[in-house]
């Protein structure tokens, strides 16, 4: 009888707090978004599953010696997982379009204003007493607007580990929502004529340029912003492995087995930060709203920067590629192409948009480095 009581006392049902029950539903919602809606399933499926495991009452999988907590400590607290993922992203990135038209780097710069505007917004909401975000929190939330999952996770792990779960979920969810969030903004801020601008055919880029670029990028980072060096260093390293052509077996493994393995454990570890007591806070709602705002502002600034550049330069830029400056590679570039085709069915913007798209990755990492330098 005693043992029956103990068994009952130890069931999840008996121990469940209302918050854990709610979080189980949130976990299932994430699985639904990943599987049925195909929202960034590579990350949201492991994150969703991890959040379910983390909220099983009495199991303690995300605490103490629980396996998800171990994954978190080993992989995220150390910074290893997001950096390795970034190395993999580097190995999957082609800087060709950017090298053919380097001034599109400026579009990637402009789109980072979403990050800082959101930081201001978060601090403003705190000043109004609606939320209680510190400057560190606000900076980590702002990086959602950079639309790079690993960068967001890396910065959050350094500046605001308690918010990491909400930030990662917002980051990947909005990246998946890029095809819904961006087009209305793009149509609102451009005229049909602007959307029809045909851009000059991109030149061919030599292997030598592609090999030198990541090293040059790293050197510039080393000289000017050392705090961005881990992120951009691993990114440049992955890219150099790919472009150098002398370590194809390492590059292949980086792009496949390694990035896949790390993605699984990164997702589970992030999920472990979706425990009820941390996640079910009013702050989470603030993060979700601010993250959306960050995306929208970043998109708008990219577009406006393109229009500004057209006021001065002679080779006109189709402003639709400016929105790709938020990164969310390659989704945002595909959206630029898609909206461009609506205006002119023969105007393919995809390759032109890949320039600002990868520039956005660099820009966000620079912004991240500044945040870490000032606040870390």
């Amino acid at each position, binding site marked *: 009888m005693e043992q029956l009581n103990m068994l009952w006392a130890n069931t999840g049902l008996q121990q469940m707090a209302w918050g854990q029950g709610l979080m189980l539903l949130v976990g299932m919602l994430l699985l639904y978004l990943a599987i049925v809606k195909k929202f960034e399933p590579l990350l949201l499926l492991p994150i969703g599953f991890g959040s379910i495991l983390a909220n099983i009452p009495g199991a303690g999988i995300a605490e103490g010696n629980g396996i998800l907590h171990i994954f978190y400590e080993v992989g995220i607290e150390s910074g290893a997982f997001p950096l390795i993922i970034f190395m993999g992203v580097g190995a999957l990135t082609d800087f060709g379009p950017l*090298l053919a038209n380097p001034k599109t780097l400026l579009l990637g710069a402009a789109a980072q204003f979403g990050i800082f505007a959101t930081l201001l917004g978060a601090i403003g909401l705190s000043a109004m007493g609606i939320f209680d975000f510190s400057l560190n929190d606000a900076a980590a939330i702002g990086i959602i607007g950079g639309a790079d999952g690993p960068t967001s996770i890396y910065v959050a792990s350094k500046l605001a580990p308690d918010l990491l779960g909400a930030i990662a979920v917002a980051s990947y969810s909005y990246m998946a929502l890029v095809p819904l969030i961006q087009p209305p903004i793009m149509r609102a801020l451009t005229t049909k004529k602007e959307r029809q601008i045909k851009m000059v055919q991109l030149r061919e880029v030599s292997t030598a340029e592609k090999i030198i670029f990541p090293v040059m990028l790293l050197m510039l980072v080393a000289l000017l912003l050392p705090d961005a060096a881990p992120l951009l260093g691993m990114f440049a390293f992955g890219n150099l492995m790919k472009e150098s052509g002398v370590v194809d077996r390492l590059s292949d493994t980086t792009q496949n087995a390694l990035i896949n393995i790390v993605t699984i454990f990164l997702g589970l570890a992030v999920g472990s930060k979706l425990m009820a007591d941390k996640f079910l806070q009013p702050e989470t709602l603030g993060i979700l709203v601010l993250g959306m705002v960050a995306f929208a502002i970043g998109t708008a600034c990219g577009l406006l920067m393109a229009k500004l550049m057209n006021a001065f330069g002679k080779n006109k830029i189709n402003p639709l590629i400016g929105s790709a400056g938020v990164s969310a590679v390659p989704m945002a570039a595909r959206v630029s192409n898609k909206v461009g085709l609506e205006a002119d069915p023969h105007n393919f913007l995809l390759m032109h948009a890949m320039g600002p798209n990868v520039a956005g990755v660099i820009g966000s990492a620079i912004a991240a480095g500044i945040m870490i330098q000032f606040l870390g």
Partner: protein
Amino acid sequence: MEQVDLITEALNLTLFGMGFVFLFLTLLVFVTKLMSIIIQKIQDSTPVEAGAPHRDEMADELDEEAKFVIEQAIKMHRGA
């Protein structure tokens, strides 16, 4: 008072942050363009690949002969 400080700091961070992002990426634009120009100059002036023929040549010779021999040898040793 404290909140005003917080807002000031946030504004500062934004100002310096966006400034630095633009500074860095503008610099990157110039350096990239410079690099591309230099590379294209070099490649135009050396129509056929130069590089390090001495060692490469040796390695290539090695490669070709060795590959043949390895294949032969493997053939002989298989079954073993």
